[in-house]
């Protein structure tokens, strides 16, 4: 079994006085696509932000390619080859579509070229001069994913990329994720929609109250459906 690309051990995180993560443990191996499932408020988004270094305070251990990230500022973490796509997408209104796409600096060789990104998301090419936030919700999501593919980051942290999108666009994002997996990207995906998650992921970690409480390989998802319904309250 290969060494984990990312290993999270006993991760605690706080926003101001509120203690959100209470000792999160999980790991991701190179080339895997792993989801974090759980109810609202379970700590999924906070886990992604903690890995990326954009929460108030954190403690524990986050190792990426054997390097400890817990004390690094987020710009240094990004330079090591991690990239984050936030739930609210984070498209900049004062930047054009093209400027948004070219904003994240290339941190490593091996990222997708701009043409490859337009190949994945042809809509973007037609709107390059438009203001970033004049795009539709689906197009903004494509832009948010597209711009981190350029950077050469090998671990992508995606926070609910399908939230609030039309089924045809969810499908397009699913195709994109499968393509990324084939190209060797490692992905940590936060997803409310576990039916979507099941179409792309290798394994699922379930979070409750700021901890990882279970791990379900994708192949055993059907057998664990009752348990999962319990966890997610659906």
């Amino acid at each position: 079994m290969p060494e984990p690309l990312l290993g999270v051990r006993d991760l605690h995180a706080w926003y101001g006085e509120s203690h959100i993560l209470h000792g999160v443990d999980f790991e991701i191996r190179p080339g895997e696509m792993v989801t974090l499932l759980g109810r609202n408020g379970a700590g999924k988004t906070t886990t992604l932000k903690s890995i990326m270094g954009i929460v108030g305070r954190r403690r524990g251990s986050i190792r990426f390619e054997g390097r400890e990230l817990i004390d690094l500022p987020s710009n240094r973490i990004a330079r090591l080859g991690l990239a984050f796509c936030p739930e609210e997408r984070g498209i900049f209104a004062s930047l054009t579509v093209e400027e948004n796409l070219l904003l994240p600096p290339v941190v490593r060789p091996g990222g997708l070229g701009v043409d490859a990104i337009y190949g994945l998301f042809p809509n973007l090419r037609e709107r390059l001069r438009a203001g970033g936030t004049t795009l539709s919700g689906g197009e903004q999501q494509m832009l948010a994913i597209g711009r981190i593919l350029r950077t050469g980051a090998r671990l992508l942290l995606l926070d609910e990329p399908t939230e609030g999108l039309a089924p045809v666009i969810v499908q397009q994002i699913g195709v994109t994720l499968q393509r990324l997996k084939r190209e060797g990207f490692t992905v940590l995906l936060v997803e409310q929609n576990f039916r979507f998650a099941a179409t792309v992921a290798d394994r699922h970690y379930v979070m409750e109250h700021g901890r990882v409480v279970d791990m379900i390989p994708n192949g055993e998802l059907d057998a664990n459906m009752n348990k999962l319904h319990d966890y997610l309250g659906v």
Partner: protein
Amino acid sequence: MTILGVPTQALFGQLLIGLINGAFYALLSLGLSVIFGLLNIINFTHGAQYMMGAFVAYFLLQWAGLGYWWALLIAPVVVGITGIALERTTLKRLYHLDHLYGLLLTFGFALIIQGLFRHEYGSSGLPYSMPRELAGGQNLGFMFLPNYRAWVIVFSLAVCLTTWYVIERTRLGSYLRAATENPALVQAFGINVPRMITLTYGFGVGLAALAGVLAAPIYQVNPLMGADLIIVVFAVVVIGGLGSIMGSIVTGFALGVVEGFTKVFYPEASNTVIFVIMALVLLVRPSGLFGRAS
């Protein structure tokens, strides 16, 4: 020859004065806008930093024999570095607080700096002569145009437009604009946002110092030169819309000209016209002529 009963000589003379004042309004309000956009701080020290630019030019000449052109290069860097020290030691602690705290702190610094200079150099101006190369002027037929004044207008316009270009059209500018909207995300893309903020403050302060060097041969070097000017500049910034780059430049020059013409047609109002316009703009468009409503 007269236009609307006013001799053209007087009209163009005031237009020139208006453009000169406008050049200073534009340079100073541009720096304030750049700083406010990224730091969220209303830099009340700006007038004092403008004055410091003029004083550094004066010191360079007195102590080192370095003239105007060297001052134009060195003063913005020196004053910019003092700004960076200020940002690193104090301002950076205020970013998460309301604008009011930054305003109070920078206002306090302005009073301290101006007080120190006034203590040392009194409040009568120190002379600073214009560079030999720009002495004299051109007779344009309808008016006499002093070379130095033409230089101030052209140079400050060039600096303003270059700044606009860098911020609105380059990769570096896209980092700045993006960090103005969402600094945490820009930093999570691998950009050292705290360092960018520090350098931006240094740059804005450097612009103020540059304006101070430009002003030295015209207004002399005076510890209170910035205190008088900065109040008008804040009115300009309010009219243009805080944070808008092109808005600062256009409003700066335009209000200088409006002020100049008011001196011709209704001299009694020339000191207040900008504040009257400010009041009207605040009533109709509180976010300023070029500002985005937030």
